[in-house]
């Protein structure tokens, strides 16, 4: 119920943000679109967020206050810790609220879940094998013991993010789970390098792409129809950080995350990292399994206007994810003492790249303060950032966080280019803070 109503508010802002301001809070923008909160409108918005808004003069028209825009955490589902957000229960898709992502290494019970098909019963290890075929000199059929005993092990902290993380920000709303910011995790994965396996099989010169298969089932129950079968270009799949993993945070990989073995191709849309992996088909062309063709996991070659109908031939497969960050502490809506510094912290990542600068703002982006940013413990891990911020007066503030990658590409404050399926929204995360 509360979810439905929150959605109503978000929709209202989607449809006509300035009108929504006027209707919900009675605020009307002045000609410069700022400095508009007056009289009853200011009081109403203040009452809604629970206090005065010191930087109200900077607050853009039509901006839904972060205190009201966050996802609901009223929902519960078995198998995961309390407080996660269930986006769908068949197929199972679960988001982690930002404040539960504070760990440097994301525990399994807080890790987001993205499924296309069934959540399969765990296979008996003796029945599991991994086939490598296609454009290779020697086909391989590896048992679990072969995989674990025959190749060098690596343990790496690797970010995995759903390509549609942030989809809820796009308007008109694209198809798919309406993820806010929490379809991201950074677990410590142990496995073997896919490159070692592919070298053992011997890549032919014709090998250009992989196609991944698994033992989960299509929701229709059709055994001949894979729920999803994606892959990646050979360069990405030969990267030493792309691994065939059999441990998550030192334990067997949980059923929801791909037991017993999954691909982890960090920094790319999570769907490249097939769960419940049973086969890597080396292809002589871009893979064309379900999830590779049509509109799925594809973006327009050229920018399009919101809501555009984009012909299939103008779409291309997504590659690396892009620079992004989140605020994992404090939880949005927290009370802090006015006039004294409080700690803000979170993580930042940038797909195949890395984050060089992290900044935070307490005044709707009018001024930015540099945050302390740690280097990643290994390439493809997210990076810890932290800062101390001081609200000068009592009232409602928002913390905005912005990461910039090593190539100078920063997160946008507003939602970036609309695309038909709602991928790659890397706009800044923001939280509400009440100084008392």
């Amino acid at each position, binding site marked *: 119920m509360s979810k439905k109503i929150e959605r109503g*508010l978000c929709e*209202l802002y989607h449809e006509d943000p300035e009108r929504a301001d006027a209707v919900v809070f009675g605020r009307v923008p002045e000609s410069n679109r700022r400095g508009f909160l007056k009289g009853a409108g200011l009081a109403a918005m203040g009452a809604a967020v629970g206090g005065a808004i010191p930087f109200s003069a900077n607050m853009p028209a039509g901006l839904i206050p972060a205190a009201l825009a966050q996802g609901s955490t009223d929902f519960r589902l078995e198998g995961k810790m309390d407080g996660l957000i269930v986006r*769908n229960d068949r*197929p199972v898709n679960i988001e982690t609220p930002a404040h539960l992502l504070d760990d440097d290494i994301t525990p399994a019970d807080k890790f987001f879940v993205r499924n296309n098909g069934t959540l399969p019963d765990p296979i008996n290890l003796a029945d599991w094998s991994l086939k490598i075929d296609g454009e290779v000199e020697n086909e391989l059929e590896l048992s679990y013991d072969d995989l674990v005993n025959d190749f060098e092990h690596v343990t790496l902290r690797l970010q995995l993010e759903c390509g549609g993380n942030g989809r809820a920000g796009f308007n*008109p709303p694209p198809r798919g789970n*309406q993820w806010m910011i929490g379809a991201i995790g950074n677990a410590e994965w142990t496995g073997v390098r896919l490159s070692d396996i592919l070298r053992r099989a011997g890549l032919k010169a014709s090998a250009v792409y992989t196609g991944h298969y698994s033992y989960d089932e299509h*929701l*229709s129950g*059709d055994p001949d*129809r894979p729920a999803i079968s994606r892959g990646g270009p050979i360069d990405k799949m030969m990267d030493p950080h792309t691994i065939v993993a059999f441990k998550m945070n030192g334990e067997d990989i949980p059923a929801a995350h791909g037991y017993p073995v999954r691909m982890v191709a960090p920094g790319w849309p999570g769907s490249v990292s097939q769960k419940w992996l049973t086969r890597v088909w080396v292809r002589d062309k871009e893979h064309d399994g379900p999830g590779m063709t049509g509109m799925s996991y594809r973006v327009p070659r050229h920018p399009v206007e919101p809501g555009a109908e984009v012909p299939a031939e103008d779409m291309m497969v997504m590659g690396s994810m892009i620079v992004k960050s989140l605020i994992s502490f404090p939880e949005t809506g927290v009370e802090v003492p006015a006039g004294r510094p409080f700690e803000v912290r979170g993580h930042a990542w940038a797909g195949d790249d890395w984050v060089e600068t992290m900044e935070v703002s307490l005044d709707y982006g009018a001024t930015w303060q540099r945050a302390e940013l740690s280097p990643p413990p290994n390439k493809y891990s997210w990076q810890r950032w932290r800062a101390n911020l001081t609200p000068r007066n009592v009232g409602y503030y928002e913390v905005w966080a912005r990461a910039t990658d090593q190539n100078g590409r920063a997160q946008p404050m507003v939602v970036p280019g609309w695309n038909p399926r709602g991928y790659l929204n890397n706009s800044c995360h923001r939280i509400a803070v009440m100084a008392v």
Partner: protein
Amino acid sequence: MKKKNEYLSLASAAVVALALSLSTGIAKADEDFGGLPEGEGQELTFYACQGCHSLMTVTNQRFSRRVWDEVLDWMVDEQGMAELPDEDREVILDYLSTHLGIEG
């Protein structure tokens, strides 16, 4: 664009939501038909969809009639859904674009 009274009810609902979200967890209303909003075509829509997936897949979305039409095509062409009789398809499209629609 929504009518004025709808805006007002949404607006007051938003304020109620604020109050409620601060209190205890709230039981989910409308358990019937997987949470589909009431209206003509609710039942038909439920049975057309629920065989394969949760109705959350439907209620989480807001599309124009054009996009709902594409989604039904996609379900049939790529996801193994049985073709719907034309009459049912019209009722379902009307239902979806009315109750889970967007303008435009």
